[in-house]
């Protein structure tokens, strides 16, 4: 039978954000998947180079609406390391609390989206309702539901009062009960089992080959979590464990995320109960010394990397953001091969793709009819992306 090319996107009912798949199918079976990203390039990395460390954090939060705290923390953490500033323990605890609440809201959102993709809208409504409880807590702590603006270089901007601690601790058991319900559902709910089990299977070897990160990797038995392997904030001081599963399919990824929900809840509770007294920020210098740093952070979707190069001023000379979705795309292309066309939405949704964060610049030379991406060399010292070997060579 001859193969057919089916274009999905950039605008498509199954997709929430613009991305283009060229699905090469043999009947109903997918033979190959070609990805075309970058319909949402916003030039945030370039914009970040022109803003000082105070004004850049709100911009970086807007890289992603779901993991806004992740981006700001990854950047602040890197700059603080360059400045050799240690933030007070209370600030570290507050950053961890917000990070884990963010992970909970992200996973609850994902669970709803995945359920919606398979037509299980009851679960979609339930998880999004419970997500509201987490959002309310975040709003109480930070003053906003989405962009928390908790970070600043040298600590956090807001303290958590004793009243807020008590009020959040009082509401956690309800959430715990709901998460227990989801654990039960994942084990025996027929709709979920039928649509998730065996779909988008990736072996441990494949995960390592394609370099997938986060819950996608942990669902295939890869015990990799930045919080454990390169601890930051207080993750090496509080009790928690890395959740891994060996299923390797969408079902495994669901179980990992539900497992992480209870782990995060435990961490939030521990941090709130053991919140140390003291300052919430130290005075950080205005400018950072010249240097390069790779700041790693475990965002809800996986490992987030911020490469920052400073030149002794109060601005970053170069910022490069590697979001977890970018690392996971290749694994999606591999997971889809051999599956039915109807499985595209759920397999794509299983990595929790965030396309706005992922978009990369592609340089198109119309005269030569060539396409290429930025070389690694453009990140090296002295190269701001404009010189030879860089962006416009």
């Amino acid at each position, binding site marked *: 039978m001859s193969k057919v090319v089916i274009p999905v996107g950039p605008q498509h009912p199954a997709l929430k954000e613009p991305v283009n798949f060229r699905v090469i199918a043999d009947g109903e079976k997918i033979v190959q998947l070609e990805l075309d990203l970058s319909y949402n390039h916003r030039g945030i990395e370039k914009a970040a180079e022109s803003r000082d460390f105070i*004004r*850049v954090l*709100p911009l970086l939060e807007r890289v992603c609406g779901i993991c806004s705290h992740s981006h700001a923390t990854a950047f602040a953490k890197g700059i603080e390391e360059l400045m050799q500033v240690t933030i007070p323990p209370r600030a570290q605890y507050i950053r961890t609390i917000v990070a884990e609440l963010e992970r909970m809201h992200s996973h609850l959102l994902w669970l709803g989206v995945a359920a919606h993709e398979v037509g299980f809208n009851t679960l979609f409504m339930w998880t999004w309702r419970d997500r509201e409880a987490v959002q*309310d807590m975040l709003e109480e702590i930070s*003053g*906003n539901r989405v*962009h928390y*603006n908790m970070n600043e270089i040298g600590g956090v*901007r*807001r303290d958590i009062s004793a009243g807020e601690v008590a009020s959040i601790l009082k509401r956690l058991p309800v959430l715990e009960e709901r998460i227990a319900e989801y654990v039960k559902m994942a084990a025996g709910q027929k709709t979920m089992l039928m649509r998730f089990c065996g779909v988008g299977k990736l072996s441990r070897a494949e995960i390592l080959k394609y370099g997938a990160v986060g819950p996608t990797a942990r669902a295939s038995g890869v015990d990799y979590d930045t919080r454990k392997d390169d601890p930051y904030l207080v993750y090496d001081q509080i009790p928690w464990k890395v959740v891994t599963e060996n299923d390797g399919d969408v079902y495994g990824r669901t179980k990992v995320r539900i497992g992480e929900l209870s782990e995060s809840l435990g961490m939030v509770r521990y941090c709130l109960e053991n919140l140390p007294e003291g300052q919430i920020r130290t005075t950080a210098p205005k400018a950072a010394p010249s240097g390069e740093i790779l700041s790693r952070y475990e965002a809800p979707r996986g490992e987030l990397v911020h490469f920052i190069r400073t030149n002794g001023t109060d601005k970053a000379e170069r910022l490069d953001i590697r979001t977890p979705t970018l690392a996971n795309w290749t694994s999606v292309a591999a997971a889809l091969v051999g599956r039915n066309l109807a499985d595209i939405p759920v397999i794509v949704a299983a990595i929790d793709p965030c396309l706005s964060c992922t978009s990369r610049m592609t340089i198109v030379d119309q005269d030569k009819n060539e396409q290429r991406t930025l070389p690694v060399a453009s990140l090296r010292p002295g190269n701001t992306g404009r010189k030879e070997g860089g962006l416009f060579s």
Partner: protein
Amino acid sequence: MSVLTEMFRNLFSRPVTILYPAEKVPVPPGFRGKVTIADEKCIGCSKCSVVCPARCITMTDSPREVEFKGKNLARKKKPRVKLYKCIRCGLCERHCPADAIHLTGEPASCGPSREEVTA
């Protein structure tokens, strides 16, 4: 089974939705909403305008005597905030030395006239 329990519970509970804008969702203390400026406190130092990431604060002429830390200062300018451009990050409030600019619990406003979307 849990679906049925949920359904019966919802049958006898109040609806979650409200009739906005007649009713409004209560916001917690510390909510970052509409920006207001206390004119009698502002010393016109321009710090808010410098730190604003959205560049929505401009300094306009407004000569006035203000008291700051027990001294009388002759202010020349005061900030003017374009609310439709404001991202409500609260950096102006954080860096204001005179405690003159605040984010209130009021939601973002919209309106047909420039005055309604300017603070």
